[in-house]
């Protein structure tokens, strides 16, 4: 009797919980688990990309997010493009290009007979308009000033001939990533209006563009919809629509991929990637990427005029200390354990996927704690009683290391580095800060070491400029502004090489200079490049096929320099569509289990309530 009553008590309780679970569930389960995304019309082929950071603005002059640039290159053409195979320059809007013999201007031949998406002609005049607008603009300079700094003016000699006059010869002229805009639209948006101009579809009208896709709908924080542009010069792409959907994190995207809500997810964590491997209808690819991460040192923070700033430790100014740190970091372990194998050990600041430019150093520094200890010992750093070395000046080797809040890898890397350096007698005080704070601290020179990284463009100029003396911080009205330099590396010889490569329009000769610069940086250990990381990617191979990696054969599939995959992908044929529908509309076994449990809970609860009622009536 007692046992039974106890059981009833339990039943009542569990049924209460079951009811609670069932309440919101009942209507939904009755509806047969609303399977999303698949609801879009069957005849329209929609390719959906999951993104974590929303496009901040679809106006190419004001957006700064990575996804925004992905949108711009879908919406607007550029003169030339980076090839999918190896980043070499290939025709874009321009069929051909030529530097004048006296190196004072470049001539671009624009494809004839092109049209914007609204049917207006797309000519060299639009290109000239765009370039002049950037050159003479204010806010227009923000995103594209880097490309036009050497250009004095743009002239359209006729509908197919664009001439750009330059101050100095520059290899940048091969790759002007300035999005060519339709003059007939943008001429009405002056320098004042452009700041707040949204450039979004209005009244159901697509944003006029000339790239492979045009923007047809935008919902802030939710999604962007693009439709294939029939007037695109390389032909209308096979995917009718491309949708960028915003998710909170890559976990959510991965799950959406699994459920078929999106077709493509990248930037996946190793765990998530592994969990997707082998999933039905999903293909996973590690994708070689152009980013590297590093441990950087404060090599003497100063303003461009040489005035020292900040509170960096003197200890890391010693090249031998930096060498010892480089010797004490096991890049292979970081690649394997922190990045889950989706990275390769790093060396120089130009990643190896740029085969023409990357230098494999002749004198690689390997992981060797004994050697690191010996290096410090030889340089006069003697071990103290507390296991922390003391510098020849009598200073304890205690260094600060900043990691980034935004990156779980960063937080792990600094923990590993702290651990290793402890083994060579260097005490490390780790602090995790936001990237914003880190940027500020670095700009002010208030650091010893930090962990961060760069994504390197195919043109090495920008990356190499970050080590020039001119890119150190500047001061204006008592406020210090950070330059691009975050190591405060400053070397006259290096600066000279930088100037040389900037003027060298022979690409093979330029590559030689670039390699020399990499060697100099490597020897200085301004950066200990920890890894070149991959971009773990997964996509619905049961729906889409024929992606184009950049570079061949194992590069990234989307978020490339160019729109290669958007143009090449094709929907998988009919027999595969069956697989999709069966997985979407089929009966989910777990749903049955849940349903049964809930039903059981309800029945038990009902019995229980009924019984209670009776027993109480008895009392009454």
């Amino acid at each position, binding site marked *: 009797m007692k046992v039974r009553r106890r059981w009833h008590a339990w039943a009542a309780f569990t049924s209460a919980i079951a009811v609670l679970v069932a309440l919101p569930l009942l209507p939904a389960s009755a509806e047969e688990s609303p399977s999303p995304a698949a609801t879009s019309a069957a005849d329209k082929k929609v390719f959906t990309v999951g993104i974590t950071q929303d496009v901040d603005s679809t106006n190419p002059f004001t957006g700064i997010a990575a996804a925004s640039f992905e949108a711009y290159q879908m919406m607007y053409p550029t003169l030339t493009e980076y090839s999918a195979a190896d980043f070499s320059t290939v025709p874009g809007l321009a069929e051909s290009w030529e530097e004048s013999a006296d190196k004072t201007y470049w001539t671009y031949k624009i494809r004839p007979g092109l049209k914007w998406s609204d049917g207006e002609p797309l000519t060299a005049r639009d290109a000239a308009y765009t370039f002049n607008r950037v050159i003479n603009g204010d806010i227009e300079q923000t995103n594209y000033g880097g490309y036009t700094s050497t250009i004095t003016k743009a002239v359209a000699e006729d509908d197919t001939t664009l001439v750009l006059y330059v101050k100095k010869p520059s290899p940048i002229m091969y790759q002007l990533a300035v999005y060519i805009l339709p003059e007939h639209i943008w001429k009405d948006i002056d320098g004042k209006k452009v700041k707040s101009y949204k450039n979004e579809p209005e009244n159901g009208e697509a944003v006029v563009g000339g790239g492979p896709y045009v923007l047809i709908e935008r919902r802030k924080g939710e999604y962007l919809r693009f439709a294939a542009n029939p007037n695109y010069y390389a032909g209308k792409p096979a995917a009718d629509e491309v949708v960028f959907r915003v998710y909170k994190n*890559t976990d959510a995207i991965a799950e959406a991929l699994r459920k078929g809500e999106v077709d493509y997810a990248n930037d996946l964590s190793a765990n998530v990637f592994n969990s997707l491997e082998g999933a039905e209808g999903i293909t996973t690819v590690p994708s070689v990427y152009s980013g590297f991460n590093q441990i950087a040192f404060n090599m003497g923070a100063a303003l461009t005029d040489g005035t020292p700033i900040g509170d960096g430790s003197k200890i890391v100014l010693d090249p031998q200390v930096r060498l010892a740190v480089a010797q004490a970091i096991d890049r292979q372990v970081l690649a394997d354990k922190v990045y889950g194998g989706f990275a390769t050990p790093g060396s120089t600041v130009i990643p190896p996927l740029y085969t023409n430019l990357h230098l494999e150093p002749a004198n690689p520094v390997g992981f060797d704690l004994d050697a690191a200890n010996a290096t410090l010992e030889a340089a006069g750093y003697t071990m103290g009683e507390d296991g922390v070395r003391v510098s020849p000046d009598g200073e304890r080797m205690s260094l600060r290391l900043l990691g980034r809040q935004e990156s779980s890898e960063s937080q792990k890397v600094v*923990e590993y580095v702290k651990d290793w350096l402890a083994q060579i007698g260097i005490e490390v005080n780790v602090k995790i800060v936001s990237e914003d704070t880190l940027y500020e601290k670095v700009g002010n020179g208030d650091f010893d070491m930090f962990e961060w990284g760069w994504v390197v463009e195919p043109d090495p100029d920008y990356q190499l400029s970050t080590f020039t003396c001119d890119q150190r911080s500047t001061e204006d009205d008592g406020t210090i502004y950070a330059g691009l330099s975050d190591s405060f590396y400053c070397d006259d010889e290096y600066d000279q090489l930088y100037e040389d490569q900037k003027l060298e329009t022979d690409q093979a000769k330029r590559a030689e200079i670039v390699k020399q610069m990499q060697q100099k940086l490597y020897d200085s250990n301004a950066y200990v490049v920890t890894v070149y990381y991959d971009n773990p990617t997964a996509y619905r191979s049961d729906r889409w096929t024929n992606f184009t990696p950049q570079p061949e054969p194992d590069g990234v599939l989307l978020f490339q320099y160019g729109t290669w995959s958007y143009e090449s992908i094709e929907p998988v044929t009919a027999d595969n569509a069956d697989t999709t529908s069966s997985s979407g509309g089929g009966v989910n076994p777990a749903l049955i289990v849940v349903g049964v449990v809930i039903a059981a809970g309800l029945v038990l609860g009902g019995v229980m309530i009924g019984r209670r009622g009776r027993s109480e009536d008895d009392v009454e």
Partner: protein
Amino acid sequence: MASDQQTGGAPQGRRAIARARRREALARGWGQFRTRRAGMAGLGILLFFTLSALLAPVLFPPETISVTRATGELLAPPSGEFWLGTDDSGRSMLALLAWGARVSLTVGIAATLISMVIGTSVGIASGHYHGFGGAALQRLTDWVLVIPFLPLAIVLATVLGGGSTVTIIVVIGVTSWAGTARLIRAQTLSVEGRPYLERSRALGSGNWHQMTRHVLPNVFPLVLANTTLTVAIAILSETTLSFLGLGDPLRPSWGATLDQAFSNGAVSAGAWWYIGPPGLCVVLVVLSFTMIGRALEQIVNPRLGGQ
């Protein structure tokens, strides 16, 4: 409790009597506590975790939770070698939990101490002083009580600079005292109404003397019961704040471990051994403090009933 003290006798003797009475009350309290099964169970669980925390360095030498010297596979499910599996650096979850117990318990107890000191002082003072000061303290208590805890804690942690264990302790300490203050104030008022305090006042004893010699000993049992309950809240708060990334990532408490698991995609990876055990530890420890606290409360204030 040692309440109504009698007059007469040498001061020395009075104090001795008071001490004896308190000892006696303590023994009686323990006798009562022992009969409460939930309280004893709580004590048992707590002892277990305290021991794990104390013995962590012996059972699991520091190398076992060093990322560079971890020996396990990354994110391996439980096995013979690693009973609770490994985290995403290949470290034994069991070792991490034992070390985490040190942080979680330390933070919980340290924060509670701060909270108790503030709460008891404010409570006694606001009950004792009838003028503007007392009223002001009471208002302050009411205000702090109403402001939602977590947003306030987040804001404070941000201002004080997150990422350190000390910050977490201070933040929890200064945001969780108001409940105690309110309780102690009520008790103080009832104690102050008793005749012997009026006598003491009439005899000209100062405020400080009254508060520390008469009020404090009388509210102390209540403080004690409240302390154990506050530790429970403090540990939960620590877990929450660490989960939000405000703790010290290199000194992993249970909450920080959950943060790690969450932000490293353990949910998607289905790594239940990475998520389940740290939370279970929190539940058990919080539950143990709650059970002890409730048992104590029932002893201190039998009217609360229960059995």
